[in-house]
């Protein structure tokens, strides 16, 4: 099992230390991704998803970001203990990242061919010209005419730019692809195209992927495994089937309740009440407790650990309520 892991994050803690406050963005998370698997990391804005993603490349801006604790093993090597030179070899080569906003993720004064080629040139020790030729192939692979390698980002549409970003990320066929909300900034029609492209390329290149999103629909479309993140902690994780069909955490339930259901159009959407807690001032117990409809006195006392769900090897949940064996979520009861 352990050899199979491409990514193994253990007890990662990341804080942003500013003059005014200590922002606890990520508070002890564990994430494992096996070869060729796709994990969806789901959560609201500000849950610490992007921070997690940047930690994997050791790219947290410091200052103010500080990785306080934990380890990130990539194919057995600890990223956090690497020298700058080794890190540069890993970035773009073993792990690559697709960013949220293709409008700003490309350098406006370099041709897209140069930008794709740069990554190949850096990691494969080939000349700029050869790299440029390979960049053209990459463009073709993401469905853009080779001749456009000489164009600049401002000459591309949003969807096309994201294709270019994908081409940059995949240029060196990394083992792990991190996609940080790759479709959020795109039009809905383009979203599906880009997603389809990513899915296809990942299968072709046999890559593992960490897909970060707040869109459960995207997760359902692409991911085999799902982790739900709330206020810097993983509150539930398991296979897509575990989380979508047998959800255990009240927060996960809340997320699904706020989604429209095509089968029952008459049903009212239930938003999760309240707001995410201020990450510089987290409540002492379960951070979801102040918003949780099932919360009890016990929830505010201690932080619930992630425990495996009875009868499942893959499904984990962090909720105090399950200490009572009779507890079950409203949604699951209705379903039964």
């Amino acid at each position, binding site marked *: 099992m352990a050899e199979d892991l491409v990514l193994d994050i253990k007890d990662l803690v990341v804080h942003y230390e500013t003059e005014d406050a200590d922002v606890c963005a990520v508070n002890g998370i564990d994430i494992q991704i096996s070869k060729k698997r796709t994990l969806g990391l789901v959560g609201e804005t500000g849950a610490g998803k992007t921070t997690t993603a*940047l930690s994997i490349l050791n790219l947290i801006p410091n200052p103010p970001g500080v990785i306080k604790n934990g380890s990130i093993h990539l194919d057995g090597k600890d990223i956090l203990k690497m020298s700058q030179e080794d890190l540069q070899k890993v970035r773009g080569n073993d792990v690559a990242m697709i960013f949220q906003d293709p409008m700003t993720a490309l*350098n406006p*004064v370099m041709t897209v061919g140069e930008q794709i080629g740069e990554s190949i040139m850096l990691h494969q020790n080939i000349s700029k010209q050869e790299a440029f030729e390979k960049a053209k192939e990459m463009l073709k692979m993401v469905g853009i005419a080779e001749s456009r390698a000489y164009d600049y980002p401002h000459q591309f549409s949003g969807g096309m730019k994201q294709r270019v970003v994908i081409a940059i990320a995949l240029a060196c066929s990394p083992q792990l692809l991190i996609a940080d909300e790759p479709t959020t900034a795109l039009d809905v029609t383009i979203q599906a195209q880009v997603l389809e492209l990513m899915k296809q390329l990942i299968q072709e290149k046999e890559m593992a992927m960490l897909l970060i999103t707040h869109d459960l629909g995207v997760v359902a479309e692409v991911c085999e495994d799902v982790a739900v993140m709330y206020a810097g902690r993983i509150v539930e994780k398991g296979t897509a089937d575990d989380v979508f069909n047998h959800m255990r955490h009240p927060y996960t339930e809340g997320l699904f309740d706020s989604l429209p259901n095509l089968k029952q159009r008459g049903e009212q959407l239930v938003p999760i009440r309240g707001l995410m807690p201020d990450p510089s001032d987290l409540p002492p117990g379960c951070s979801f407790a102040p918003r949780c409809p099932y919360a009890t006195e016990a929830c505010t006392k201690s932080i619930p650990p992630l425990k495996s769900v009875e009868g499942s090897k893959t499904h984990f949940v962090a909720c105090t309520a399950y200490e009572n064996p009779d507890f079950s979520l409203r949604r699951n009861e209705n379903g039964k």
Partner: protein
Amino acid sequence: MIKYIVKRLVMLVPVILVTSFLIFWAMSLTGGDPALMLAGDNAQPEQVEQIREELGLNDPFIVRYANYMKGMVTGDMGKSYVTKRDVFKTFMERLPNTLLLGGTAVVIAVLVSVPLGVYTAIHQNTWKDTAGMIFALFGTSMPNFWLGLMLIIIFSLKLKLLPTGGKGGIDSLILPAVTVGFGLAALITRTTRSSMLDVLRQDYMTTARAKGCSEKRVIFTHGLKNALIPIITAIGLQMSLVITGSVLAETVFSWPGIGRLVYDSISKRDTPMVTGSIIMCSILMCIINLVVDLIYAFFDPRIRAQYSKKG
């Protein structure tokens, strides 16, 4: 692109016409009576009248202006009242000296300030940043002719290392160029720093890091190339400061450039020289501005595209 350049050059014509008209008009109001000056103190009224007729001073203003412009096209801007030499020729003789001084100053300023600006931006909010910013603050607060005087006191009079003025070898260029370049360096340092700080926050910098670029490559290949546009703008805008600085530095160091020429002509009330020099200076500025715009296009593909469309 070439179309654009041609278009810009054509657009220069009305600008030059308007500026030269204004300058010509202003100077013709102030110059006193040139005929009287030329004729000398004990001239007969008939002699004065004759000179007046020869110079066409009795013509109406518009005619004189038209004649002046006609002359200008062929490089004839009249003769100096004082030295009797051709204005255009004198200007052109002096111009290389000013270009040498200004050019050296700009080169020194850029070589110092761009690296310093990048350095302070990377080390934002550290003592290195503060030190750099204090340097820049003093640079912008110092009148540069005073800096020139201080440099003379220190390097020429106390240390006796460099000449106090005049144009000789390369050593005579150092102090005037530093004088002109110092304030410029301070301004460019500030611009580079803020432009770089802005660029450092951009997403494409993270993209570059995520690709595996070394920090050096991220800063210089990806960062500086993007930060350059505001820096070039700043340098372009400061060109008039370079000219102003040159006038003062040339006065302080007796450097035989156009600044010194204008100053001398003003103090001698040599109207054709002043008029001609100022008109030529404004043409020079227009050309510098055009060159700056073209340099933009060289560095920024978006601007390049715009120019081609317009052209």
